[in-house]
């Protein structure tokens, strides 16, 4: 069909106006995009649309659907099934609205896209946090504090306490015949003794270890949330490992709270010194990238001491001992404590001089060695000797001195060491060294003396003499002799001189 020139001119005019209109819409969209807090529309495939519409209509999980819409996942089209889909044969798989899905998303699922992160995490100490089951801490929760047979093994002290951070061993709910229980909608139910749980060392039904959601809260999966210190503070807090309290007391924490709005916590890739300069967070030092070091999800990659046990060791010591015992060659990519310290110093040097951080590590090493040599090693040796010779029963926590010893290393001893590691002076001093000393001199040693006397009375003289000899050696050692009035005369003189100077300085009597 031929068209007249006039008609053509009219079409050109109308088409030009329409073109202008769509270009204005594009301009408007770009302006919106440049606005702070802009979030693009979520990308949803048919599967995700189906999930969202149903969950939103029925109000079940409506909020988490809305959270997902604001997430980076939604922005790039990673929908519900990308994470929740299950494979035929998975023990926790069930059919839901025509799709085979699983309720719990494990690191194995996340690893379909985040391969490096999951590989690093799986080899970290975080992933092994579930190994606590059967340890001294867990005996406390399961036996001393709680009761394993309580309410059909509900074990509340462990399930609501320890395992919420360390991770549970997830199990399906079984009926009396050993078959998995489903609700009226066909959804598989989990054993409430083991789930809900997002503990970082959770043992999952697919054999994987851990839970990415321990740090990356569902369903926002916000990088800002995961980088802020409060995130780590969910577990790294309290009397036995007060890292968040120490951080808040430190200059690092003070700067963070003072300049939080300048932290650019949403920035990618969030390199210290490039994307932010205000303060370091836990993530900065232990995980995030520096200009010449990549991010890691193995939180042990930058740690040189292990501050957790009764006696601190260099972090590679136990693994190296295992290699030595088995005769197996140490892998080439094995990170020694020196490598790990060098990694941490890579972060420190972004703000501090070489001289500063070298001296810091001298101070830190000295504090750990002081605790080890003055308190940790002798107290542990004495406790081991008493366990071995029968002065203590094989049961833990049934004798007072066991509580005393536990508090000495597990609470106060850790606080002193961690305070030094993270530059929280009050935690090193009053919550740390002071309380370790108080525990040692006012409880551990007096209780030990009493036990020695009692053992002698109850015809355990040889065992008592063995421990008495250890105590005598300890008290006569250079660090403890002040306690029995044998302080070195030179030291006594020096103390007196210092005291006189102090009185003179402040004109006090």
């Amino acid at each position, binding site marked *: 069909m031929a*068209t007249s*020139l006039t008609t*053509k001119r009219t079409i050109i005019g109308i088409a030009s106006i329409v*073109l202008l209109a769509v270009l204005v*819409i594009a301009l408007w969209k770009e302006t919106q*995009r440049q606005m702070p807090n802009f979030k693009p529309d979520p990308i949803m495939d048919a599967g995700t649309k189906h999930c969202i519409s149903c969950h939103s209509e029925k109000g079940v999980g409506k909020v988490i659907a809305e959270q997902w819409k604001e997430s980076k996942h939604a922005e790039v089209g990673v929908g519900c099934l990308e994470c929740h889909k299950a494979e035929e044969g998975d023990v926790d798989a069930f059919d839901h609205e025509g799709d085979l899905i699983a309720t719990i998303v494990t690191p194995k699922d996340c690893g379909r896209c985040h*391969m490096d992160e999951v590989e690093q995490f799986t080899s970290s100490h975080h992933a092994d946090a579930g190994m606590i089951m059967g340890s001294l801490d867990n005996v406390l929760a399961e036996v001393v504090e709680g009761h394993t047979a309580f309410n059909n093994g509900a074990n509340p002290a462990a399930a609501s306490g320890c395992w919420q951070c360390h991770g549970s061993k997830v199990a399906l709910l079984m009926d009396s015949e050993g078959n998995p229980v489903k609700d009226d909608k066909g959804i598989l139910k989990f054993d409430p003794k083991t789930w809900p749980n997002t503990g970082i060392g959770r043992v999952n039904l697919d054999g994987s270890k851990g839970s990415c959601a321990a740090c990356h809260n569902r369903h926002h999966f916000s990088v800002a949330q995961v980088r802020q210190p409060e995130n780590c503070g969910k577990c790294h807090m309290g009397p036995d490992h007060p890292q968040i309290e120490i951080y808040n007391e430190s200059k690092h924490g003070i700067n963070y709270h003072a300049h939080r709005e300048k932290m650019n916590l949403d920035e990618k890739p969030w390199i210290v010194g490039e994307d932010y300069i205000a303060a370091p967070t836990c993530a900065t030092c232990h995980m995030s990238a520096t200009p010449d070091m990549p991010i890691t999800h193995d939180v042990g990659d930058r740690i040189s001491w292990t501050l957790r046990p009764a006696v601190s060791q260099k972090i590679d010591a136990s693994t190296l001992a295992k290699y030595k015992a088995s005769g197996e060659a140490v892998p080439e990519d094995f990170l020694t404590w020196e490598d790990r310290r060098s990694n941490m110093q890579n972060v420190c040097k972004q703000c501090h001089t070489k001289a500063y951080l070298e001296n810091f590590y001298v101070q830190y090493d000295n504090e750990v060695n002081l605790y080890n040599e003055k308190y940790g090693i002798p107290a542990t040796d004495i406790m081991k000797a008493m366990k071995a010779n029968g002065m203590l029963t094989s049961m833990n926590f049934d004798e007072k001195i066991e509580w005393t010893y536990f508090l000495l290393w597990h609470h106060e001893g850790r606080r002193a060491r961690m305070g030094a590691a993270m530059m929280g002076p009050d935690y090193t001093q009053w919550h740390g060294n002071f309380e370790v000393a108080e525990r040692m001199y006012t409880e551990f040693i007096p209780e030990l003396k009493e036990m020695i006397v009692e053992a002698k009375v109850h015809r355990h003289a040889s065992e008592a003499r063995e421990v008495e000899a250890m105590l005598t050696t300890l008290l006569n050692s250079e660090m403890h002799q002040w306690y029995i009035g044998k302080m070195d005369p030179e030291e006594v003189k020096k103390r007196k001189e210092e005291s006189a100077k102090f009185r003179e300085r402040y004109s006090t009597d």
Partner: protein
Amino acid sequence: MGLKNWFKESFPVDTVALITLTSEPIPNHLKRWWWGLGGTPLFMFIIQILTGLMLIFYYVPDPDKAYQSVEYITYTSKFGWLIRSIHRWASNIMIAALLLHMLRVFFTRTYRRPRELNWMFGVTLLLLTLFFGFTGYSLVYEQMSYWAMKVGTGIAGATPFIGPWLADFIRGGSEIGQNTLTRFFLFHIALLPFITLLFVGLHLYLIRTLGVSELKFPGDEKAKKKTYPLFPDHVYTEIIVVTLILILLVSLSLLFPAGLGEPADPSVTPLHIKPEWYFFPVFRWLKITNLNVGVLGPIIFIFLLYAWPFIDRLFEKKFPGKEITFWIGIAGFLTIMVFLVWEIFGH
């Protein structure tokens, strides 16, 4: 000497030749709206050059940085999403328009003497455009890009006689890596545009020298003149087509902006690898045959496409008036469509 005269002297223009050039008589059948398919790919090509130049400002052809740079273009840079989306949609429209243009030429048999060579130039332009598409989506360096490169270069490696050499040449070695990306980048932004411009020039030159083939439609006999002027009549038509395409491109980019898949990971094979839709028929063919037959099929198909004007003449001579080539064309077209649909819905 005034500025006007100085310019005329410095830049002499043959006004007579210019008038002749813009007054080219156009056959009446081109007044039909759907006859602008040959110009559409050319316009798309211009769009691709312009948007492509803008994308090069930020794109980094390095396996460690390519994906990040595309991510930056898509989510951070100003209007990056729009430029990239237009580039992506224009590539699709360019290929679709080329295929429709070729179908029109095929079924109207305008490739016949003396236009055989121009048909062959057209086939070459189609192949170049497909190669543009392949190298283009490989540069994104997402999972699909990487595995498309892997599959694509693997197929090239199965070409008879020259396969291993060809695959190594495209990859720049035995594995996909920095060399491959550098080569694909070079093909996409320099080599292919240069060769394409050359063939577009030859194609247009032959259209102008041989003239557009005149087709008769019912009603055309009534017209007093067999032709109509290029300017303004046909130019208006082209302006309308170009404006409508621009509206379409911006609208598609607004509604369906180019996204990003997962970054390339050589250690993880995706569950389902799918190339762009225009490779679907070949991909399905490769799935149902073994690699050697699979590669031979497209090679034979391309050879037949090139030789088609001569095959057509041969059939016409042997079976005059039987329209055998028309039915072969229909059968070929339907086969390709079946393979396309099969791949869309099949696994």
